[in-house]
């Protein structure tokens, strides 16, 4: 067994052990079912709720909002990062702001966003972008900082246009760090949108979880929570595998 497979095996075994322990504790009455339901019941509830079709609209709404926020965050964050990178004065201004950005609870702006943009998808998208874009900006700056000057010289020796230099040299060179930002952006977009729905919206999976919570419907709440968790893990897993493939080419392994 290779080291990577062994690590994966141990990781799955630890996770399975924790889930089994929780299942046993819930079934044995050590944990009150009003607090946490057994993981088996969570899975059954998730299949039941998602399979029934009653949440189709919420699922489509939530994940399309997250996807839109994610794509916009990548576009705006990369562009803003690249612009800041070009100007040392802008960089001096932006660096401390970016460093302290995540100490600002962006959710407090949700009422303002609703007042400005109305109810619906727009304020949630903006909230998702506000959560995710700074991570992309930071990773873009770090990625561009890391492009070796000799590669830029090489571009000039080969008389590449600015567009080709960007596409053939700068982006591939910066990609590993950009990717770290993309992974964070996905997580932050998901958190921003779900939390926005949870707190103040009247639609989406976040709202459905909040509604189940307020109705003391533990089965529905845990089922939906598990569904959101699974989708987040799968989406991050895809990015992780993609990143791993890129990294393997660049490492001596």
């Amino acid at each position, binding site marked *: 067994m290779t080291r990577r497979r062994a690590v994966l095996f141990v990781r799955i075994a630890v996770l399975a052990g924790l889930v089994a322990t929780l299942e046993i504790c819930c079934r044995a009455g050590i944990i009150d079912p009003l607090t946490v339901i057994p993981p088996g019941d969570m899975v059954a509830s998730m299949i039941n709720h998602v399979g029934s079709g009653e949440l189709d609209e919420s699922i489509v709404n939530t994940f399309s909002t997250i996807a839109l926020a994610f794509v916009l965050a990548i576009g705006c964050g990369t562009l803003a990062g690249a612009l800041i990178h070009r100007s040392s004065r802008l960089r001096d201004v932006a660096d401390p702001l970016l460093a302290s950005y995540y100490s600002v609870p962006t959710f407090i702006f949700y009422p303002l966003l609703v007042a400005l943009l109305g109810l619906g998808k727009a304020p949630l998208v903006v909230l998702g972008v506000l959560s995710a874009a700074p991570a992309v900006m930071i990773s873009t700056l770090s990625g561009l900082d890391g492009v*070796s000057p*000799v*590669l830029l*010289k*090489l571009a*000039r*020796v*080969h*008389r*590449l246009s600015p567009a*080709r230099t960007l596409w*053939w*040299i700068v982006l*591939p*060179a910066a*990609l590993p760090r950009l990717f770290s930002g993309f992974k964070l952006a996905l997580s932050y977009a998901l958190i921003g949108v779900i939390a926005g729905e949870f707190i103040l919206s009247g639609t989406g999976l976040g709202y459905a979880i909040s509604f189940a919570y307020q109705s003391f419907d533990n089965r529905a709440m845990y089922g939906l929570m598990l569904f959101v968790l699974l989708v987040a893990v799968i989406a991050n897993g895809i990015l992780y595998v993609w990143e791993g493939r*890129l990294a393997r*080419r*660049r*490492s*001596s392994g």
Partner: protein
Amino acid sequence: MSAILPGSPVPGGTPLATSGSSAPAIELSGVSKVYGRGSEAVVALERLDLLVLDGSFVSLVGASGCGKSTLLDVLCGLARPTSGSVRFEGKELHGEVPDGIGVVFQEDASMPWLSVRQNVAFGLRTSSLPEKEVAERVDHAVSFMGLAQFADHYPAQLSGGMRQRVCIARTLVLRPRLILLDEPFGALDQQTRLLMGDELLRLWRETGATVLLITHALDEAAMLSDRVGVMSARPGRFIDMVETGWPRDRDSRIVSDPEFGTVTARLWSSLREESLKAMGRAA
């Protein structure tokens, strides 16, 4: 085999020409390069004249910080001289690298996201050559540099010497008429440097290109070159041009020739005082 050793430093302002019957490949006339302005101005190069004839192998040596790499940037058109002119095959350079010049840098310039073959082919991405010819040129360059077995490897899987060979192969596919090398073997161990020197000499002989090598290693310059230009401490000026007189068909075994020691000693005698100046110590 005898080394031709001019007895006195070349007077300032006189072009340091390589001998031979060919036309000049590259010509510097009164080139100076100044960074910054006013009291903060730093003179990197001062009134350099140089004539490198087509098909010759010339090295430039100098103390650390004497402006060798600045000179390379000026020679290939990456940097404009503050005054003076640079001509490649008779045409003046204006801040652009002209067609026909290939550059190999001191730093590892292989692209880690591309395989060896893709790295080598990168040089021809913008060319209008038919696909078949591109493939042939790439295969030839990869084989020529002894990388055929590693064509599908990525740079991270190669040693430092092999990565530098990838960079040389990438230059080679362009079939440059002038190859500029900026301390390309600086990061390699002595044995690998000698062997890479052999590869470079083979490349020079077989392509017929003019080679201009910038190095701080006197033995490397003495072994590889027809002529070696010695630069002063900053601001960089030429203070000597040593003609080695080696035959064209040479390799690293020349280091055991008694004349090799004479050439190296001559270079060091020209450079010692400048190296002391560069270290901030009086001669």
